């Protein structure tokens, strides 16, 4: 479903070019949950940004659903809108929207009718165990609940690929475990590929496969 080959990325630090990613290759199948591990500065976030079509300046080739990955901003926006879902470390929910409205957002962007948005959002929030919190705003929810809303938001439109950046980093261990289980369950149910950057060994252990990065290169790749 997603194939990336020989990905490289340099940053300019003063007059010097620093390589953050060098010759990184790999692939993700539909319904597969892959952990991206490695120490800080290893290039995890940069790879996530590239594979999430957020950063278009890189070397190498990416194929998504057997098509070349977009290289222009409008095409990348369209891809993210139609095919991708995102989960962030700090949840990034819109504070003025209720849990239900937050989950409706990606569906709204896809042009679903309000009725369809409502039905899908309620079903998704029920699935993540927040049926009683539909009308709560993020400030009224715990960290774990907020991340579950964020997961519901990312998965509600059944995207082909979900990019998750440290989804358990801001959570206590109980909430983190709930989020890990939920993500795994939804990934396998929906058939979405999930790429998770994580430091959390429990999260990595729950994934189907782990890609370990070090100094911008793949150090090892292992199945769970």
């Amino acid at each position, binding site marked *: 479903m997603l194939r990336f080959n020989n990905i490289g990325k340099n940053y300019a630090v003063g007059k010097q070019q620093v390589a953050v990613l060098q010759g990184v290759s790999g692939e993700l199948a539909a319904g597969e949950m892959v952990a991206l591990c490695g120490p800080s500065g290893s290039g995890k976030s940069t790879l996530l940004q590239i594979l999430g079509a957020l*950063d278009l300046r890189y070397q190498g080739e990416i194929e998504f659903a057997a098509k070349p990955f977009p290289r222009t901003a409008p095409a990348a*926006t369209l891809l993210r809108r139609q095919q991708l879902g995102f989960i962030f470390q700090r949840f990034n929910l819109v504070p003025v929207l209720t849990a239900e409205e937050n989950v409706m957002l990606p569906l709204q962007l896809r042009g679903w009718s309000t009725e369809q948005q409502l039905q899908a959002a309620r079903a998704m929030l029920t699935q993540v165990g927040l049926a009683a919190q539909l009308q709560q705003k993020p400030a009224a929810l715990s960290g774990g609940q907020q991340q579950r809303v964020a997961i519901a938001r990312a998965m509600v439109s059944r995207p082909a690929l979900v990019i998750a950046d440290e989804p358990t980093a801001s959570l206590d261990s109980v909430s983190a475990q709930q989020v890990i289980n939920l993500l795994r369950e939804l990934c396998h149910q929906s058939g979405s590929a999930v790429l998770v950057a994580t430091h959390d060994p429990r999260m990595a252990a729950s994934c189907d496969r782990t890609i370990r990065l070090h100094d911008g290169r793949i150090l090892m790749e292992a199945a769970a």
Partner: protein
Amino acid sequence: MKRLIPHSLRLAWRNIWRNQRRSLLSLLVIAIAIFAITAIAGFGLSTYESLEQAAIRTNGELLLSRPGYLKEQEETPLADGLTDSQQLTAQLLSRDEVKQVEPKVLFSGLISNGQKSAIYLGQGVTPSLFDLQGPMLTVSQGHALLPSSSPRFKTDEPEIMLATDLAQSLKLTIGDWVTLMSTTSSGALNALDVKVCGIFSTGVPELDKRQLFVALDTAQSLLQSQRVSTLSVYLQRSQYTGGMSQWVHQQLSTAQQPLEVTPWYESAFFYQKVRSLYDRIFGVIGVILALVVFAALFNTLTMSVTERTTEIGTLAAMGAWPREIIGGFMREAGLLSLLGALVGGVATALLCLSLLQLNIQMPPPPGRTQGYPLTILFSIDVWLASSLLVLLVCVLAAWLAARNGVNKPITEALTYV
């Protein structure tokens, strides 16, 4: 109810109240700007209206004369007068739009009490003119000229009304006789004794030193002519001015007696000058206020955009187009400006009502002796126009502020703290 308001507007409403203090401050700035524009413009409109009324009460909506009469000096009095004024009057009165037609004989000369003389500017008028003058003419002593139908009217006692300063300088009071001297239309000198029936004030010092009124036939008798200088045409509504002017040109102006038709606004020089001055002043004030609103809103919205950088990044990551994100901020600014416009409009309306109750007097303007009540006209048109201006300014400020936020790379926006 919830379904009637689009989700985008409900979202904009909620975003506005994220930072209540800042939004209230922006709202206040917009409301003050709308209040200032509508109040100042309302004062201007009120002034224009009173000057328009003054001009119309003086000479009617249309002034008919021989071509060039208003610009050139006559060789002898009434040399350029209208000969068939009665026929013209009858033709004019046949039109439904015409309320009244007032002939006038304008003349000048010397007035004497037997011991002392003074220069005067006289008008021969029909007594019905004074019903149209309203507050433009204050009769302080005696009464206005009597119509011939009045039981008190005496044919052997032609009456005269004197302006207050003229009467004072000649030490004249009601019932005194004076002699009017003037050149006749054939160039000879003529004199006529008239009895003072009233003393009036126009509120203009220069006119109060020189002006007097006599009956039309008295003036014609003094000048020994049946002509009149002008015909003042009073219309049922001022809006008929253009149409009637055209009709007079087409139907009444002939080769034998060509007519010049002067609409009230062309002969009302004071009105024109004041309007020209006020329009410029109000224009500059409007631009300054628009800039103030722009600066305040741009600052507020820039802060709001900066605070919501991560949110903008999140929406962009989810695939929202830049125009959709910018549109959200523009809706917020638009909503804020509409609220401000509403508050400002209500404040102006309340001020207008308060002024009607309080009756605050303004000092006399330059060249006048009488003050006037301070009134502000609440104009829906001005309110709508200023609201639209402020709306555009706010939306522009939002567009500029949000554009900066949206142009930030998504990866930077997502990690913004």
